[in-house]
């Protein structure tokens, strides 16, 4: 909302430096985004009269213009070289005299153009930062004193424009008067609406216009006035300037007044050509499916039963309530009788219609947030006053106001103690009443040190005690509440799962992987391309199809990251992600699981598995095992399942080369993906201390010939069980294949350490332990000792 200081001063004697006023507004929650000084850069620009026009002897596109600026002798006019040809002798024009700094920064100097002197510049509207035609110079209204500074001539004072960010709960501040009211209250100066003087003439308005509200849910109040003998023309410069400053384009006097009143008072309004409205009758009702209306912008709109309509006496729609008027009754240059409407509509209905038709206007914005239902009369009167002044209109006697579904809001009981509790203040009931009164919240004392507060009709956002507390706080000043730090009775800490997430990240970082953050959205074919089940949950209203499915795995996102890096010649990237996947579920919400995944470009399943075991070691995941098995998206013979404490923890291996082809990735890609929850559980239990034996250990190595389909992990399990407490460690050393061993078997070598806590083991004991191992492995793992 752009608000001019001079405009606000119509309502209250607001004085102060622009920056100070802006700070006050901001402190009231009316955040000033920018302050602009307007009209100030017209110093040196005066009204000049054209007394002669001559062709330039050397140039076709320039003419020589003689102007008078007032005090020079009649035979010494100023010669100006001018590129525009739209003026005539006798016209008044704005002249930038020598030394003027133009709004754009250009300094006007005496100079020669093709041999002829130019003693200033005649200005176009855009050169003065005014709305208007840039092709020709600006021709001023006749009758202005020659030599008068342009600011005075146009009634444009040096002014300050505040660009204010108005929050959704403050429809009242979408008006100059509303902002002025808030500001005046804080500054302690009186606020008042200037009195409107209207002398209505016969006939009485109700004899030429009538209104019927058929839907009270749709319309709270509806008012009309009738203007006769209207001449639609151009608005005076002062109004055009204010509209322009407010960000609206001047169009014609009636449209401009309409916008002016809306900006000034916050009440949107609408005008009909009364001669085009049968019987001057307006009917307010809800629309029906199948009805149509051509709106002012020339579009044919399909009406539905959720839209509000203004119809004529024949029940034909002539306006879309609160959103846009109809074309059939539009004001034209030939209009002389104007039916003026000011109404207040149901917020939700306007919101729905403007959303449905994607028609957002200054009017619909105000209605959606809530216009002042009791401000209708003032808006009608103000409009009429301006129409009399600017369009020569006469006004019929009185306004017609029809009551709809307006329910007055009940008073709100506000307890002094509650106010002081929430704001940390010590205000009395009188203090509170004094803060509320200037912004229209009248109050009277009620029982138990409380006030009954009447909410003004322009504040639909205020309905409960806390709303009033906010108003009190706003006008008292939030800073007066002070600052204190509450002292919780608990210690701040992370949960084990949150700590574990940090450990996991640091383990991956320590292993040389960098943390990526792919978007969790996938394209419809991403899961299939990654070789995964296509069971991702889809988004109802995705922005783009490429981001329309929720991921069920971290694989597609990290594959894209690897592909992106490879295509930018970042070879061999190693990335990880801790992220949420979304799995289908029959519960209220999808099954969200947090996983961690690592991806290594140019690495094989061996390196991925080594990484896994390294991470397991760092994270203390003792007893984690890997068994080969096919995993969706992974290399069918180079991937497996990771098991930890009897639960599947995740997967490890290489990405399926077919998937890599689909993602355009070259080389092998190592992969591991684990659920974080079991890791968190493991991390939350501390390892138990085992005393270190002081006796020497006995170390032996054994090799077994084992069929290929018997995994090492199974042998290790057998050995750990068979070894008993004296087997302190078993380490897999290597696998060895040869023709001798056959095509389907390999030799696996292990190293064992035996040790007792209380003695040195005898050779006989070690031999027995060794034999136990051999017997167990041969018995359970289809293995034979290699000798």
């Amino acid at each position, binding site marked *: 909302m752009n608000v001019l200081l001079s405009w606000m001063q119509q309502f209250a004697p607001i004085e102060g430096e622009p920056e100070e006023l802006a700070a006050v507004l901001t402190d009231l929650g009316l955040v000033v985004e920018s302050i602009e000084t307007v009209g100030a850069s017209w110093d040196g620009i005066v009204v000049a009269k054209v007394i002669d026009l001559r062709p330039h002897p050397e140039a076709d596109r320039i003419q020589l213009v003689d102007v008078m600026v007032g005090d020079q002798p009649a035979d010494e006019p100023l010669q100006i070289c001018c590129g525009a040809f739209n003026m005539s002798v006798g016209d008044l024009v704005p002249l930038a005299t020598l030394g003027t700094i133009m709004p754009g920064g250009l300094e006007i100097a005496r100079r020669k153009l093709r041999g002829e002197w130019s003693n200033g510049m005649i200005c176009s509207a855009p050169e003065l930062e005014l709305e208007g035609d840039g092709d020709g110079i600006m021709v001023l209204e006749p009758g202005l004193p020659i030599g008068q500074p342009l600011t005075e001539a146009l009634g444009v004072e040096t002014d300050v424009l505040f660009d204010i960010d108005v929050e959704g709960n403050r429809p009242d501040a979408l008006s100059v008067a509303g902002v002025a009211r808030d500001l005046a209250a804080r500054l302690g100066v009186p606020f008042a609406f200037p009195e409107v003087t209207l002398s209505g003439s016969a006939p009485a308005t109700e004899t030429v216009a009538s209104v019927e509200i058929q839907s009270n849910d749709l319309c709270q109040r509806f008012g009309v006035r009738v203007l006769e003998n209207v001449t639609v023309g151009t608005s005076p410069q002062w109004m055009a300037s204010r509209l322009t400053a407010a960000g609206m384009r001047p169009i014609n006097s009636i449209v401009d007044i309409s916008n002016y009143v809306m900006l000034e008072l916050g009440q949107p309004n609408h005008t009909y050509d009364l001669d085009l409205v049968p019987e001057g009758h307006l009917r307010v009702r809800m629309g029906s499916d199948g009805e149509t209306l051509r709106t002012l912008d020339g579009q044919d709109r399909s009406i539905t039963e959720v839209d509000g309509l203004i119809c004529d006496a024949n029940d034909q729609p002539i306006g879309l309530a609160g959103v846009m008027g109809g074309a059939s009754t539009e004001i034209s240059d030939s209009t002389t009788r104007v039916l003026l409407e000011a109404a207040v509509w149901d917020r939700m209905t306007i919101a729905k219609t403007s959303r449905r038709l994607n028609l957002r206007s200054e009017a619909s914005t105000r209605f959606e947030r809530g216009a002042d239902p009791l401000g209708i009369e003032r808006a009608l009167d103000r409009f009429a006053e301006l129409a009399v002044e600017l369009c020569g209109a006469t006004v019929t006697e009185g306004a017609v106001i029809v009551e709809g579904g307006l329910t007055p809001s009940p008073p709100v009981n506000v307890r002094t103690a509650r106010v002081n509790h*929430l704001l940390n203040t010590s205000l009395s009931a009188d203090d509170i009443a004094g803060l509320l009164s200037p912004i229209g919240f009248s109050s009277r004392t009620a029982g138990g040190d409380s006030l009954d507060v009447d909410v003004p009709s322009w504040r639909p956002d205020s309905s409960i005690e806390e709303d009033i507390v906010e108003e009190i706080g706003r006008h008292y000043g939030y800073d007066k509440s002070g600052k204190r730090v509450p002292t919780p009775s608990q210690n701040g800490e992370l949960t084990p799962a949150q700590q574990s997430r940090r450990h996991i990240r640091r383990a991956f*970082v320590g292993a040389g992987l960098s943390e990526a953050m792919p978007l969790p959205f996938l394209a419809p074919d991403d899961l299939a391309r990654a070789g995964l089940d296509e069971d991702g949950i889809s988004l109802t209203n995705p922005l783009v199809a490429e981001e329309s499915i929720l991921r069920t795995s971290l694989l597609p996102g990290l594959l894209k990251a690897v592909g992106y890096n490879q295509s930018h010649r970042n070879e061999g990237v190693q990335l990880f992600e801790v992220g949420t996947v979304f799995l289908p579920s029959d519960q209220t*919400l999808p099954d969200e699981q947090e996983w961690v995944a690592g991806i290594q470009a140019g690495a094989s399943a061996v390196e991925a598995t080594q990484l896994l075991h390294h991470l397991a070691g760092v994270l203390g995941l003792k007893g984690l095992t890997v068994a080969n098995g096919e995993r969706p998206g992974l290399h069918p013979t180079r991937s497996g399942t990771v098991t930890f404490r009897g639960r599947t923890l995740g997967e490890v291996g290489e990405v399926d080369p077919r998937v890599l082809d689909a993602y355009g990735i070259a080389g092998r890609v190592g992969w591991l993906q684990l659920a974080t929850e079991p890791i968190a559980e493991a991390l939350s239990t501390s390892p138990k201390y085992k005393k270190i034996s002081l006796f020497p250990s006995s170390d032996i190595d054994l090799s077994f010939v084992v069929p290929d389909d018997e995994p090492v992990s199974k042998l290790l399990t057998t050995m750990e069980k068979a070894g008993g407490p004296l087997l302190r460690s078993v380490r897999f050393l290597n696998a060895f294949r040869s023709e001798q061993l056959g095509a389907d078997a390999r030799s696996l070598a292990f190293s064992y350490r035996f040790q007792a806590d209380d003695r040195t083991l005898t050779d006989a004991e070690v031999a027995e332990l060794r034999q136990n191992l051999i017997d167990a492995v041969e018995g359970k793992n289809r293995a034979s000792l290699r000798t």
Partner: protein
Amino acid sequence: MIEDLPALVAAAVSAVATAATTDELRTLEQTHLGKEAAVLQARKQLGDLPKEDRKDAGRAINEAREQIEAAVEQRRTELASSERAAQFDSERLDLSEVVVGERPVGHRHIVTQAWEELEDVFIGMGFRVAEGPQVETDWHNFDALNIPPGHPARDGFDTIYVDHGESGSTLLRTHTSPVQIRTMLAQEPPIHVIAPGRVFRRDTADATHMPVFHQIEGLVIDRNISLADLAGTIEAFTTAYFGSGFSSRLRPNHFPFTEPSAEFDIQRPDGSWLELGGCGMVHPHVLRAGGVDPEEWSAFAFGFGIDRLALMKFGVDDLRELFTNDIRFLSQF
């Protein structure tokens, strides 16, 4: 024999002194000090000497042996030193020639860095960390936060809905505020929590917008919590996170879930202001939705973006950089 000792010693010392290697020295040691060494063989003759001479002769033999031992020890030290010197010379490495980068260095994402730093600041202030699902019910995301169906604020959130359950009933949370509701429903006051998390808006990606971003939410419910507690908490956070030269202010604003509401700004040491986030006293409707009696308890809440702090800290000027996963970006921090 005894009289030969000086000559024996002289010969041995001379031989030892010119030993070229420790191996040669070991052989010489064996020769001159071993069981068969002439000096020691002299002991056998002691018995032949008159009793009164034995003592002197014995001492002479010991002295001879000690002289040779000293010579050997001295030579051993010399040889060890020169052999180490030779070894060091031959093992010379130029460490400037070592190929670096063979071991990849991992980096935490800057959003994670900011996230964890923020958590740590609030943990230091006695907060715990609460979490909630990213796909939420519309009730938790809107209704419970005083944004009933049809409320214009729902439009302002540019919500992404999810095809799960009844149409329109589930969505990608548009803010971390639903965690407030979940926390209230899960535990009795007093409550002092922060809720960092990932949130979603139906926004086209540009330098300042992403459909996915991260927020941190704070909620304090206790007896007698006032606007002053909110302002004090924001101020304490500001100095802890940004530094002692920074301060904060609250100014009125509007949010459906707080009343009174405020925006909080951070003032930099140079006097300029940074709009950081929204806050306010939790709206009684929200407290009731969480099963908390607003007459017994009062509460404040605040929230702000994590990503922007991460960008500011490192001078990154485009939000999209956070999500491209280019290693040249990730490895800078």
